[in-house]
Each structure stands twice: as C-alpha cells, then as structure tokens.
C-alpha cells in the first residue's frame, strides 16, 4: 500500500518568506507527527496530532512555526518569516494508533537563502 507522502520534496525560500509543507499520512492512521532533522543528526520532535487534535506542540521552536490537520488526515506545517536556521529536512510520520510504530515519509528539504 501507499506510504506517507510529503510535498514538495525540495523547497528553497528566501529569508523572510513563508512556506507550507504538506504531509499525506497512510490511510487510516490516526496519529501524525512532524520532526525536524538537521544534517548528521537524528530527527527532533516538533508536534503531534491525534486525528485533528494537536495534542503536543512542545517541540515547535518558535511561534513562527504552525501546524494543522483540520480533517484528521492531511497535515500542513507552516513556517512564517523563514530564517537561515530553519534550513533542515522536515519529516512527517504516521502511526495506526497511539503506542504503535511510526512510519516516515521521505521528507521535505528546506533551504533558506
């Protein structure tokens, strides 16, 4: 079956621009996660949804980062007024239920120039 998909795969933004990153989870998966991965590092948690409810946003680095999942399926991570330190790979993961294993998408590589 289809895995987690993310778009775009690559995004170049000028400093100060807003960006929106999309995640399509595996069909039927109720839990959705966003992670940020810097080069040579492991993924770091940003935020977590159970259906449409955002239950944990403790990893969002600033109020410039905003995530939503309005219908409990597709999710969007929005970054306002991008900064160079936002350059990273943004990974989305989904799991069937709470406490299950998470399956990752291919990521979106964001470069802020």
């Amino acid at each position, binding site marked *: 079956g289809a895995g987690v998909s993310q778009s775009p795969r690559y995004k170049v933004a000028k400093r100060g621009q807003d960006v929106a990153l999309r995640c399509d989870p595996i069909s039927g998966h109720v839990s959705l*996660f966003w992670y940020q991965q810097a080069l040579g590092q492991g993924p770091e948690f940003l935020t977590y949804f159970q259906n449409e409810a955002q239950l944990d946003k403790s990893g969002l680095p600033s109020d410039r980062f905003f995530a939503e999942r309005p219908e409990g399926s597709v999710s969007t991570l929005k970054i306002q007024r991008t900064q160079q330190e936002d350059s990273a790979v943004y990974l989305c993961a989904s799991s069937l239920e709470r406490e299950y294993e998470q399956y990752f998408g291919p990521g979106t590589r964001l470069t802020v120039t």
Partner: protein
Amino acid sequence: EDQVTQSPEALRLQEGESSSLNCSYTVSGLRGLFWYRQDPGKGPEFLFTLYSAGEEKEKERLKATLTKKESFLHITAPKPEDSATYLCAVRVTGFQKLVFGTGTRLLVSP
C-alpha cells in the same frame, strides 16, 4: 532529561564481518525502543520495536536486543546493501513522541 546515545558514530566493515551497534538510554520510563534504518535522501525506515528487557527481534541479517540500559543491533555477515545510517529512538511514558539518537553510519565494503 531523556537521552539516547549511539555508538560508534561511524563503522566500516568488510562484507561478511559481523558487528554490533550500541544504543544506550536514560529515560524516566520506557514505553518502547525503536530501531530505524535511514538511507541518504530518504526518511527513516522502521525495523524493530522492543518493549522489555530480555526481548529480542530478528529480521534477515539483523537482530535487536534490549536490556534495562541499552539496546544492541547485531549485524551478521553484512552485505554492501546494509550500508545506511541506523537510528535508535525511545518513547517515554506519558508521551507519544520519539526521542532519537544521532545514529551510526554503517559502511559495508565488498
């Protein structure tokens, strides 16, 4: 603070040369330890979940084990296609997020 430490950072093996990767953790309460494989330019690929000390899981040339302080990923007779970064992560009681280590970069030469 919950922490995951992986060693070595990088490992170079000859094809057929077995070895082990280490993942040590310090957490308030473990609700699962996860191993993932990540190829360059791709997202992490799920390998195993371990829940309690003494548990073992196998898949082809890989075997994961768990103690109260660490996990090992044993690679038996590796092949070049096993070359990747192997990530270890923990889920802590009360949270759904995964806390990752920095990974071990494995290179298997023919």
